[in-house]
């Protein structure tokens, strides 16, 4: 099982390792391509999740399962409810109705910080680098179970000093892997947009999550950094983590995801491996509108032409009449 693989935190992204990708593909081979399909080893299961804003139903997901150890993409047109669904799953928003569980533990009504501690960590569409903290402090913040985070123990460095050194070592390893080590002491606010995305992902890994939820990891990233970010996302899978991400960039979705879930108007409308999903009529309809490519038949074409002739003729007659 993928999750049993040891985490290899310091490997550089190579893109050539593909053991987990094959394992995920094999596990998902027999899963039917239909919304709400059951997975062989789901890490996250959600049922009847509904979120309404006034009269608008933003999310109405009947059933969804996310396979452990795979990279699952959540796609859909703007306003499909992807980010809202993310917010609900991670405790940043409360649904009107619904249940979901992570690793078999019910998460409905659990506060966002507890969700993170349970091993499900998210990033944000608008990157949240902590600007006036240095890069290394951003990283250290991510570590959980810090003794010095208690106000009384905080007063005595002897209590938390050793742990702080261990955390710093782990943070430095991750920074090196994400090629941010040269920025170690800089304010996070001075990083470029792409570097902030990298920092946010690295910081999320400091929590040592089982599942990483990335909200548009490629938004606003310079194309030169895209490949490296893609490599890092693939590495998460190689390290045994489960990834669920929202993305608009279809090339990225095709390149790295093992499974794609499509949302439109709050509902899951299709599921399947990337290639199957992108040819799915329901998906094309959701993105481009229902009748965008319905070709005209020859008769209809003749009819349209004839109508146009008549209209033209009439107009010409009217103008002549007017001129006399």
């Amino acid at each position: 099982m993928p999750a049993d693989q040891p985490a290899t935190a310091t490997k550089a992204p190579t893109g050539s390792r593909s053991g987990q990708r094959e394992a995920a593909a094999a596990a998902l081979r027999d899963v039917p391509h239909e919304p709400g399909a059951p997975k062989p080893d789901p890490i996250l299961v959600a049922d009847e999740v509904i979120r309404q804003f006034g009269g608008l139903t933003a999310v109405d997901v009947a059933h969804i399962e996310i396979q452990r150890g795979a990279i699952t993409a959540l796609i859909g047109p703007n306003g499909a409810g992807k980010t809202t669904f993310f917010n609900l799953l991670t405790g940043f928003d409360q649904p009107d109705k619904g249940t979901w569980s992570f690793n078999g533990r019910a998460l409905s009504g659990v506060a966002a910080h507890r969700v993170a501690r349970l091993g499900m960590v998210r990033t944000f569409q608008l990157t949240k680098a902590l600007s006036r903290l240095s890069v290394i402090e951003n990283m250290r913040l991510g570590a959980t179970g810090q003794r010095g985070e208690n106000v009384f123990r905080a007063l005595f460095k002897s209590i938390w000093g050793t742990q702080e050194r261990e955390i710093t070592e782990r943070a430095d390893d991750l920074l090196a892997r994400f090629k941010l080590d040269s920025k170690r002491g800089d304010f996070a606010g001075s990083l470029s947009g792409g570097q902030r995305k990298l920092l946010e992902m690295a910081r999320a890994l400091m929590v040592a999550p089982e599942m990483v939820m990335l909200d548009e990891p490629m938004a606003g990233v310079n194309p030169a950094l895209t490949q490296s970010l893609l490599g890092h996302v693939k590495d998460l899978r190689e390290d045994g983590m489960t990834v669920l991400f929202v993305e608009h960039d279809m090339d990225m979705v095709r390149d790295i995801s093992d499974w794609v879930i499509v949302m439109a108007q709050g509902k899951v409308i299709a599921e399947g491996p990337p290639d199957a999903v992108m040819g799915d009529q329901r998906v094309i309809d959701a993105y481009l509108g229902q009748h965008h490519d319905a070709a005209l038949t020859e008769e209809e074409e003749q009819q349209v032409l004839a109508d146009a002739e008549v209209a033209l003729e009439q107009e010409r007659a009217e103008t002549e009449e007017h001129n006399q």
Partner: protein
Amino acid sequence: MNWEQIIVNALEASVGLQAVVFALAAIGLNVHFGYTGLLNFGQSAFLAVAAYGLAVMVSTFGLSFWVGILVGLVGAVILALLLGVPTLRLRADYLAIVTIAAAEIVRLIARSVTFADTFGGSDGRQAFAGGFYDLNPYPEGSYNIGSFGFGERAMWILTVGWTLVALSCLIVFLLMRSPWGRVLKAIREDEDAVRSLGKNVYSYKMQSLIIGGVLGSLGGFVYALGQASIQPDIFGTETTFYVYTVLILGGAARVASPVVGAMIFWVVLSLTDNILNQAIDAGYISTSIITNSQVGQVRFMLVGLALMLLMIFRPQGIFGDRKEIALDAR
């Protein structure tokens, strides 16, 4: 013009009672606003609760000095909880609205006719500082270097006051270099990010509110004991705004900045007051422009002008890092 007098007055203001009180209040506010980003506009309420806790216990109920201190401290914690429970889950600006209202409620209750028997109405409370001055180790007399110096009572309260300032700064320093302080600073930057990393933001904001409130309340004790008398209107909103001025002068989120800010604030007030008064007396400034009775207001205008110049030419305050300020513009 008597320059020696002007300079001695300025020196005394730099270490005097007001500087201590505002330094302590600003150290507390620095924990709230500078480190955690909590917009607390009711810092004067923490001073008021402490001062009244002490004064009422001793002068109204005849209890001991130490009971008064304890009640004042507990009062500050309760006030922080009362302010925090309803507002800390909401957006930052709600805290500003609630705290400014709460501070006025505290002041208006203290000066109300209904509770005049307990709080003394607008006259406040007197005769409660005896227990404190009984502990005074300084023998009677005046302690001077030239004409700069204080009497034995002032020496005692200033010794205690500056010790409290030093201890408070030490506590803030120890806390802010720790992982606990890192969480507070991260909350100031973006609390959702901190939540996503598994920290209980609400609990940290509450702890910050309590610690900053208790540190600020020390200023209330020092003021009450130094004056040996309190009136409710001392704890109005302008006190909170002076505390903000002190904090911004020094530069927020630096350990020593509230102390230096408070010293500069009171030195500038003393200098402008003395120079203007003496210039009017000596006839350098015609009374058709300002009279002596208007100097009190004019000096605050000058402080405002100084603050504006500071914001234009050194927006990070005296100790701040200009690079940090530049980040906000991105």
